[in-house]
């Protein structure tokens, strides 16, 4: 009986033994859910010869992973938070990679009259109409952007006491928040990538897009080996170099959903 058990355990561990050649990239749920990595990583692996393992969490947690040394590379979209990360000494250098954009989605009937190109004006109208709005409220890059737009509109519903009933914080990722918005027929701020691959739209459509304020910049950084000596700095840097190279940038641009391009490469040459 004991022998069988030991044999089973050995088989199990042999099965789950992993290849050593890989880097760990901390990225965000919205990037993962857009499907970009499923498209991008096989090409990267072919070009570089090693595995890229993406752990997709909220931006806040992704950067925290870097601070702890649990990731080799950071690939997120919150410039303010990224620069703080660099200033604290946890990152080596920030490279711009690509941008996508945010959109405001809402019920087809648009009760608040938010439709248009101006995100700040739309938010003012939504607040005035007290229409339901689903917010992520999870310290993610998207959440940070959303709060920036509200502040520009001069409204901060999450600070009001008592909390306004129309502003609902789900504390979760983009997908679950959209699920909630669809269920409540509420407005929400989403990145286009997640929205395009989101299948449970209910009655929601894109109401606000095209405002330059809605552009969402992605940056990539190598976690500082001075702080964490075990960081795989050579492979990590090679990945960053590939992402910002013409080959990587082309791969990013080639990713489409329903014929629509999601991410627009904008790495500076020779960076």
């Amino acid at each position: 009986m004991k022998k069988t058990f030991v044999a089973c355990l050995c088989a199990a561990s042999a099965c789950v033994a992993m290849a050593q050649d890989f880097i760990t990239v901390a990225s965000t749920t919205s990037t993962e859910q857009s499907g970009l990595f499923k498209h991008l990583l096989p090409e990267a692996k072919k070009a570089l010869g090693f595995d890229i393992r993406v752990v997709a969490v909220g931006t806040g947690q992704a950067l925290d992973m870097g601070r702890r040394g649990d990731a080799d590379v950071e690939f997120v979209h919150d410039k303010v938070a990224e620069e703080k990360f660099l200033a604290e000494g946890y990152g080596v250098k920030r490279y711009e990679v690509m941008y996508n954009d945010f959109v405001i989605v809402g019920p087809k009937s648009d009760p608040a009259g938010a439709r248009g190109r101006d995100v700040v004006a739309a938010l003012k109208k939504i607040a005035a109409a007290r229409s339901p709005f689903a917010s992520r409220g999870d310290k993610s890059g998207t959440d940070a952007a959303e709060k920036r737009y509200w502040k520009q509109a001069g409204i901060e519903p999450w600070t009001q006491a008592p909390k306004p009933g129309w502003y609902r914080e789900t504390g979760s990722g983009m997908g679950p928040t959209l699920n909630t918005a669809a269920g409540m027929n509420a407005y929400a701020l989403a990145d286009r990538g997640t929205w395009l691959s989101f299948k449970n739209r209910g009655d929601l459509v894109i109401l606000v897009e095209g405002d330059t304020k809605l552009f969402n910049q992605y940056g990539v950084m190598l976690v500082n080996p001075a702080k964490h000596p075990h960081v795989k700095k050579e492979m990590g840097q090679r990945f960053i170099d590939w992402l910002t190279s013409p080959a990587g940038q082309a791969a990013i641009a080639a990713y489409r959903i329903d014929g629509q391009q999601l991410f627009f490469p904008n790495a500076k040459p020779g960076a």
Partner: protein
Amino acid sequence: MPDIAASFALALRLITGGDAELRGIVLLSLEVSLASALLACALGLPLGALVAVREFAGRRAVIVGLNALFGLPSVVVGLVVYLLLSRAGPLGAWGILFTPKAIVVAQTILVIPIVAALARQFVEDAWAEYREQLMSLGVSPARAVPTLIWDLRYSLLTVVLAGFGRAASEVGAVMIVGGNIDGVTRVMTTAIALETSKGDLPLALALGLVLLAIVFALNSAAYAIREWSVRRHG
């Protein structure tokens, strides 16, 4: 829910089509959950059995504690294991965070209290029946543990399956310590969570049905084995 028919059809297509990605996810789930269940039993069965047969100071407290750990919040376990295995943590040098090994660690911790508490219950009942005869034969309580465990093997099989079921259904802790990495630590439950959050409900439901089918099959097997054992041994 108009999607149920579509989900069933999709589930059958996925299963019979032998989709490679699905197969990988299912195999990984089975491996880590089986490893966790076996490891938890190797540690938890003797632990529960010993508590059942031995008198020692604080025994009552241990029993209450074991029963309380039944309801251990799994996200808490996930968080603690994450902090332990993180590079910034005491066991960071092991480098097993975001690998299947970390999942096995977290799941085993969750399952041990269940196995130990259930084993204690079964063994204590059996010990009441066997104690005098075994003592008469010169068997000490500690020596009796493997005898009792073997004698209760069919009942304890259900305990192993309960442990496996608990391991296989865990999401939160697995997400935290495994990272849900595509092709590496994505198991059935975390895949379901991901597809649900992407709003891809039919696919999530299809994965869920596969998981249910597996658990159902295992429990049917356990039931059949128990029935056979009663006929064989009374």
